[in-house]
């Protein structure tokens, strides 16, 4: 029972009844998180580029979205006609841009390209060199962990983590009980945390400045090699 599906629920929502707000929150929280974790195309005088929230910013933006959406004036502003998710995602987009402006990730003058439909054909999926480097590093880390597992362990990781199957479905495919899958998965997650600690991954400081410098030096080296007479 969500606002937009029933008039009485909408009234309860507007009054701020905890049970309805909790239901709304639990229903839409995953959608809002997925929306906020995408890349946002932003434009300013300097051109158009993409920006994404960090894992911690994702928490802040998600919480702030619901804080804003649940304020009395915003609950009254929802008309009950349009799908509530669309209303909520508009609040989420505004929150994400505000947060990225506040953190300096995008300029204060930047606007969301979602507000300028004529520019949305611009690619938003391209990765920066820093993101490529990080992606390679973390995937190597995961691959090294998977290499330590048995064939059964790798199969379980594939079904549960990569394919996203439920524990029941994974158990059926692996011909195990659900309890066995639960225990093995828990053990695997514990092993993964040990792997993260032992590998030093958590202690490596993610200093963008150093990473950018590394990428810059690597680019310069490649340019220099490319310009050498053969």
């Amino acid at each position, binding site marked *: 029972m969500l606002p937009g599906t029933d008039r009485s629920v909408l009234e309860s929502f*507007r*009054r*701020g*009844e*905890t049970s309805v*707000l*909790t239901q709304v*929150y*639990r229903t839409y*929280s*995953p959608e809002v*998180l*997925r929306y906020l*974790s*995408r*890349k946002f195309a932003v434009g300013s005088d300097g051109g158009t580029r993409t920006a*994404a929230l*960090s*894992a*911690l910013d*994702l*928490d*802040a933006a*998600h*919480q702030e979205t*619901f*804080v*804003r*959406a*649940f*304020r*009395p004036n915003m*609950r009254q502003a929802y008309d009950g006609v349009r799908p509530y998710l669309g209303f909520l995602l508009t609040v989420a987009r505004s929150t994400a841009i505000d947060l990225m402006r506040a953190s300096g990730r995008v300029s204060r003058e930047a606007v969301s390209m979602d507000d300028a439909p004529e520019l949305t054909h611009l690619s938003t999926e391209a990765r920066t060199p820093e*993101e490529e480097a*990080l*992606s390679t590093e*973390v*995937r190597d*880390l*995961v691959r090294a*962990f998977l290499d330590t597992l048995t064939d059964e362990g790798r199969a379980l*990781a594939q079904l549960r*983590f*990569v394919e*996203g199957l439920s524990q029941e479905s994974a158990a059926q495919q692996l011909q195990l009980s659900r309890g066995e899958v639960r225990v093995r998965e*828990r053990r695997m*997650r*514990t092993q*993964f*945390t040990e792997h*993260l600690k032992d590998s030093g*991954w*958590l202690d*490596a*400081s*993610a200093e963008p400045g150093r990473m950018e410098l590394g990428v810059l030096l690597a680019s310069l080296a490649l340019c220099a090699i490319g310009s050498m007479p053969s």
Partner: protein
Amino acid sequence: MRWYERHIDASLTRWSLGDLSSHQSARLLRHAHACQRCGARYERWAQAHRALEGNDLHAPSSVELQALSLGGLEAALAAAAPEQASSRWPSLALLGGALAAVFLAVVLVPTATTTPGEFVARGEGTAPPGVALRIFCATPGQALRELHAGDTCRAGAMLAFAAGGHAPFTHVAVQVRGARNAEVTAGPFGLSGGLGKEAPLELTVPMPETAGTVEVVAVFAGSPAESLATLRGEQTEGTVVLKQSVRVEEAP
């Protein structure tokens, strides 16, 4: 998880197993926002779990989704509180005038009778009545130490808190100014204990690395929204504001 633990390492392991309660998730995230070391660890931790689940590094993992969803509900409901209060307790409006006078007196008394910027821990026998905030200094390798007026806490240590209060005070919001992150706002937290039985708040704040002064502001109110509104500087009736400065001494 013990409430005075300094960092989030132990919580991260339980986070990855999906074992944290909503309060513990909220505390972990609050601490990660306030602590540079833990913030960086949380980012790396989240990236690794995203990769393990075969996701794009921008797509949250299943455990991340769970923790973030659990951690944000309380704050979202707190934002909606003013409307709830008026609809559930319509008679409160009728009593507003009388209560406002009493509450205003409570607000004004501490500033008139206590040393500016300080108050006595526990609040027993001292103004303001009905509420108490206790501040603790957690230094690695040393026992937890309560900070009374004029006490110091070492640079790089952590501040921890406990609070209690009698009706009509039900919530407290805390703001720490001058900590490692310039300003930390946390809560509102429900008050589960009275005076002399102050309960720990799910909040730890890292002290700055250099000498100076940190100011702790706690707002006690009869609802979550009122405590936050007062902290934001809005005019509200019936709230009690406590302030205490903590001196930061250089680590040896």
